């Protein structure tokens, strides 16, 4: 087990490195940040100066060497636009994103598993149909619709919640709710399908013969058997949130990593892009590791 994790850490490190190299070179093929940072009527001299200031005039291999040397010392470079260390910027934003992702995914996990399981258990019932349809509508509706309608309804009309921003717990409600919808719909469907298969298994009969309550048949016996795809898809959705929930962040003014990343990409702020990718990649790698480990925890047959 220890050895396995060690090996995993090593391969992950290699892939992270590969990712950095890939992003480093590819992103530099996508245009000149000077053109984007400086106003259109800036002179060629200003542009040169800007490039020189950020070492963009060196041959790309030299730039890469410098970057890696700095990286080895734990220096992720400065943002081209913000006059701040890229890592600081990213970490500040990542804290928000992480919180948002964690809160959302925990709610999604609880709600989707609960509703999905019950829907599978009562397959074909009104509850099943209703839960499925509603969640599907939610999951396929454009997220900005939902976000703006929520603001119009809950802030403008009813005045219950602040429109946007951070600060109080009330500020979290709408962003989390909007982020909740898509993963909820998707995971609910996956849970439902997975449980539907599991509920036909003979061990369910055994449990019934033992007099086990329906509740525990659903949530103890079958759930764990149907969990593998569910946590995998949850991981995917969580990764999407970790990569940043751009729409929600920009509509609700959440200072997360999604908006940061988009801006950095659109502005070719290379160091921020790289730092952001490394931080989120690390989080995603760790999450995938945990998910892979949990397979074996959930299903002893997979332990080898």
């Amino acid at each position, binding site marked *: 087990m220890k050895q396995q994790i060690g090996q995993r850490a090593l391969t992950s490190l290699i892939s992270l490195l590969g990712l950095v190299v890939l992003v480093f070179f590819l992103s530099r093929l*996508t*245009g*000149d940040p000077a*053109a*984007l*940072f*400086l*106003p*259109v*009527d*800036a*002179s060629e*001299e*200003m542009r040169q*100066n*800007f490039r*020189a*200031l950020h070492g963009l005039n060196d041959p790309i291999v030299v730039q890469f060497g410098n970057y890696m040397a700095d990286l080895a010392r734990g220096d992720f470079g400065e*943002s081209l*636009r*913000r*006059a*701040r260390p890229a890592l600081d*910027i990213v970490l*500040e*934003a990542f804290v*928000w994103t992480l919180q948002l992702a964690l809160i959302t995914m925990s709610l999604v996990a609880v709600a989707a598993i609960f509703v999905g399981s019950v829907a599978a258990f009562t397959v074909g019932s009104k509850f099943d149909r209703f839960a499925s349809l509603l969640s599907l509508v939610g999951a396929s509706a454009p997220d*900005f619709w939902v976000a*703006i309608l929520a*603001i*119009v309804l809950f*802030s*403008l009309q009813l*005045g219950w919640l*602040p*429109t*946007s*921003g*951070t600060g109080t717990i009330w500020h979290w409600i709408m962003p989390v709710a909007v982020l909740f919808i898509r993963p909820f719909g998707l995971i609910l469907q996956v849970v439902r399908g997975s449980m539907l298969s599991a509920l036909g298994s003979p061990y369910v009969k055994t449990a019934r013969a033992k007099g086990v309550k329906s509740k525990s048949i659903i949530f103890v016996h079958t759930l764990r058997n149907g969990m593998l795809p569910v946590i995998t898809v949850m991981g995917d959705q969580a990764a999407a949130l970790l990569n940043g929930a751009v729409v929600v962040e*920009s*509509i*609700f*003014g959440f*200072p997360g990593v999604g*908006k*940061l990343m988009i*801006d950095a990409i*659109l502005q*070719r702020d290379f160091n921020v892009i790289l730092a952001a990718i490394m931080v989120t990649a690390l989080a995603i790698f760790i999450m995938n590791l945990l998910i892979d480990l949990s397979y074996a925890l959930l299903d002893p047959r997979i332990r080898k």
Partner: protein
Amino acid sequence: QDSEVTIVLSEELDLIDPCMATRSNIGRVVLQNISETLTELDVRGDGGVMPRLAESWELVDENTWRFMLRDGVTFSDGTAFDAGDVVHSFERTQSDANSCEISRYYEGIDMQLTAVDDLTLDIRTDPAQPIMPLLMTLLTIVPSETSMEFTRDPIGTGPYQLTEWNVGQSIRLERRDDYWGEASDVSAATYVFRSEPSVRAAMVQTGEAHIAPSISALEATNPATDFSYPNSETTYLRIDQMTAPFGDVRVRQALNMAIDREAFIGTILPDGSIPAVAVVPPTTLGWNGDLTTVDYDPEGARALLAEAKADGVAVDTEFMVVGRIGNFPGATELYEAITAMLTEAGFNAKLQMVEVAEHEQFYSRPYVEGTPYLIGAQHDNSRGDPVFSMYFKYHSEGRQSGVYDERVDALIDQATAATGDEREALWSELFALLHDEIVSDVLLFHMVGFARVSESISFTPTIATNSSLQLSEIGLE
């Protein structure tokens, strides 16, 4: 407490460095709030250039301006303001250690700043700069201790000082007690950032914010709170006369005639937008009131094209109309409609919407080879003088120019060096030449912006609101 306001801006500030104050959102926070300039342009009246940190100025000789500075001014860090600070502030904009934007306004000018004494400053320039006081409306003053690198802790002489910067969330300015001028009503201002226009509007409506300097026209439905203001932006299609078939003036005329400008106003563009006859707004020096927009005349356009075709101009050449996605509200629709109108008039036009970085490649030299194109762009000049626009847009060597005409080059050079009425006349002449004779571009509209201001405060947006927002101009009701 009651005298605090919240202002919701459209995007987060990367920097709050005073030397970046020409960027609109940075300017709204910094300009004349944190950092002041020597002079200030009067946008509410027609006072022209007014004193701010300089009390008066005079032309010493043709190439030298002398500014008499205000006494008793201190920076928010307690140090006193003197001529040395101005010199440093200028040098800072020229430094290699940063990429200050302000410097572009001093480009091509050899400027020598000397502190004659603590409160007297001489500026020698080559060539002569008749509009030096105007140029000084752009130079934000920082204390001479400020390092050359970008700072994240701006110090200025303004009525407010930065007290809090929650990156990504808010910026807070608080009123200084030791400000040299009149104390303003607002004791503190918080700036927050929302990129969604409807959210900005909603925030003022719910009372979460007091001013939203830019909301979308579609949201601006409440006359009690929503103001339109000319935002000093002008949209136009730049024509590169080097590429066929645009070298022929008839083709350029036909382009102008093919577009029904009136149809856009009140539909895709808000009421209040004005069909443009120059690339700068009407409040600019030398504005030529005699120019009139080209009338919509698709038949005439077609006739002109036929005529040109008969002369062997390749009017059937396919060209692109390049627009920038999200450039202004309704940009895509506008360009879509324009393309349709051009096609209607017999052009072989194709729409191509591109992203910022790509747009920049099309817009600035060296231009993209291959298919000829018209590029849709928006130009901002709220500074009151065409000099900030004309060289770039129309001089043969201008970065975004598609005009190659000696008369134009000469006029630009003359006007830049001229003062007073002569300057005004020369600009006026240039506008006429470009518009009527050369038909340099397809000018579209002077745009308007919309601001929502809470009823609990009094503030009227002006043409300057696009680039600055003085807290001292806000009154409390």
